[in-house]
């Protein structure tokens, strides 16, 4: 039979981003236990939420562990250093859980100059992009009666710079759809005071707030906004309210906050590995760990589905070029939807490296007994995913 196929997997298991990796062990155990997974060996490395460390462990995996393929998940701070390393080392890599713009543009030498952008040879990424968030958010806002004034809360990090970018981010499409955007500027993460932004939003009379802050910053902002009498009708926030614990941290103030939704147990997809449905996967996780499901579960699972699928289609798994070709030719119906690098919905420069997965909109609703539920309220781009309600204004 020969040696097993070696997969390297890097994710932030400790440090501030560790929330993204909580389901790693569960998913990997499931993968290795599956029929296809039996041929694989997975070497897991912790990035410690540190980009320096991420690059280091990627090198170790490639050189010391001699992996055949790299998988990496969770935020540009993890995916980009690992993908850059793999690209330099000519090792195929599949990444996920980072919008494709910060992934793709963030790895270009000069992000400000689109003319200089080049596609990658060995790096592949599946997730959605900012155009999808914008589409989902505006569709949600369209369900409400607002003055179309939007306040933007974009930090100076991988996500924030992409969201606020005049070329690929929110400003242009919002203007095209008739929204006014107030963007006071890129703040640093872990800022303790948002009076400047609140004042700017108040002055512009914003009915809507959007942005990608990290959880503590959003809590600070949202609490201060209430204290200073700023009460928008809608707040559609990426990243910060991804995890139920983060919403819970807002106390009662999290009710009707809206967010983009990449995956839920209600998504009508199933694992290509085992046939398990999204709902069963989430239930299995809850049963195994006693924790509430989170969105990254599906995507981490899909990463390993990709690995199984790709390696099933190559003869020599040690040949990077063959593996790369197989990835490029993927067309997989995974637990997060269809993954294919066919350029659908993407600009030409990113077509070869990125596959998009469906995105819908959701709102956190306070449950009667405490805690929150995520309810899908907009599926205009992907009607196959069922909704559970409609957009409500923040009271």
């Amino acid at each position, binding site marked *: 039979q020969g040696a097993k196929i070696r997969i390297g997997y890097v994710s932030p298991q400790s440090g501030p981003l560790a929330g993204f990796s909580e389901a790693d062990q569960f998913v990997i155990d499931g993968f290795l236990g599956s029929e296809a997974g039996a041929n694989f060996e997975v070497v897991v490395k912790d990035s410690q939420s540190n980009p320096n460390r991420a690059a280091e462990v990627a090198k170790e995996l490639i050189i010391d562990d001699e992996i055949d393929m790299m998988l990496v998940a969770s935020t540009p701070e993890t995916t980009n250093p690992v993908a850059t390393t793999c690209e330099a080392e000519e090792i195929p890599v599949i990444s996920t859980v980072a919008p494709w713009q910060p992934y793709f543009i963030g790895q270009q030498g000069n992000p400000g100059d689109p003319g200089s952008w080049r596609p990658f040879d060995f790096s592949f990424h599946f997730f959605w992009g900012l155009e999808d968030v914008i589409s989902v958010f505006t569709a949600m806002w369209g369900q409400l009666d607002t003055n179309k004034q939007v306040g933007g809360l974009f930090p100076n990090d991988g996500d924030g710079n992409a969201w606020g970018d005049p070329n690929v981010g929110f400003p242009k499409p919002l203007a095209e759809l008739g929204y006014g955007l107030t963007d006071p500027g890129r703040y640093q993460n872990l800022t303790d005071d948002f009076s400047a932004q609140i004042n700017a939003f108040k002055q512009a009379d914003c009915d809507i707030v959007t942005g990608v802050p990290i959880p503590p910053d959003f809590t600070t902002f949202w609490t201060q906004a209430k204290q*200073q009498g700023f009460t928008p009708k809608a707040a559609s926030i990426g990243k910060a309210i991804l995890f139920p614990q983060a919403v819970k*941290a807002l106390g009662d103030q999290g009710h009707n906050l809206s967010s983009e939704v990449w995956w839920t147990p209600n998504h009508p997809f199933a694992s290509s590995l085992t046939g398990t449905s999204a709902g069963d996967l989430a239930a299995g996780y809850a049963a195994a760990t006693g924790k509430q499901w989170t969105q990254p579960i599906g995507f981490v699972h899909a990463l390993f589905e990709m690995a199984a699928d790709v390696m099933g289609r190559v003869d020599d798994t040690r040949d990077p070029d063959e593996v790369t070709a197989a990835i490029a030719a993927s067309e997989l119906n995974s637990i997060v939807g269809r993954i294919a690098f066919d350029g659908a919905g993407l600009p030409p420069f990113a077509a070869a490296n990125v596959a998009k997965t469906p995105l819908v909109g959701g709102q956190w609703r306070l449950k009667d007994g405490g805690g929150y539920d995520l309810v899908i309220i907009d599926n205009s781009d992907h009607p196959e995913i069922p909704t559970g309600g409609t957009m409500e204004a923040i009271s």
Partner: protein
Amino acid sequence: MIWVDTIIQGILLGGLYALFAAGLSLVFGIMRLVNLAHGDLIVMGAYLILLLVTLLGLPPFLAAVVAMPLMFCIGWCLQKFLLNRTLGDDILPPLLVTFGLSVALQNALLEGFSADSQRLPTDVLTTASIQAGPISLGVMPLLTFASAVLVIVGLNQLFYRTELGRAFRATSDDATTASLMGIKTANIFATATGIALVIVTVAALYLGLRANFDPNIGPARLIYAFEAVIIGGLGSLWGTLAGGIIIGVAQTLGAAINPEWQILSGHIAFLLVLLVRPRGLFPRAHD
């Protein structure tokens, strides 16, 4: 009006920083100990309060009160059995030991509480505000500022009105001579750190009430606390408050120009103050 609001918000923010800094100021002022683990101790305090809240169902303020004696003991032992052994002319041993402590504490909390961000349970008070003309002031920031002032008044009372305070000052002036007067300097230092951790508990309470915290959030606040202590002048508690306010106001003013400048302007204010007064605003006459 926006400018007035910006400055007021900055002052209130300064109160928070001063609260973070007060414990540090005490320890730095009395034993010249640069405690790199201070931020992590605040986070530890927040987890302790959280634990009391979830286990005993106490409201956060009461939980903080319960946590105080515990934190005092932790501080006392920490100083007595660990930090005392690093004191001396050389600043490196305390630097390395408290750095080690910071790393160890962060990761111990990570193991114990996971990386999830947490917050103390909030109520209406969290978002309540008082309308002062066109400006609305959050009750929580006001409370934070008031606590900072209270802590500093309290510490000043302790310092200048009690026998213990006298011993603090004497030991800080000259530990060897103080021991010749029968003062057990090791215990004085331990008590000081114990008190510092009681203040840390107050800081932790507001840290946990105002926003999320996770095991790694400590170090980010540490630098502001140090800035407040240093531009205030070694050992001057009111100076620490002033330092906190300077940094807070500089940050909000910078942010009002462009949020890109927010944190940078805090640091630049710090550097400017030191450029003009290398020993801070209210240095001790003798050193």
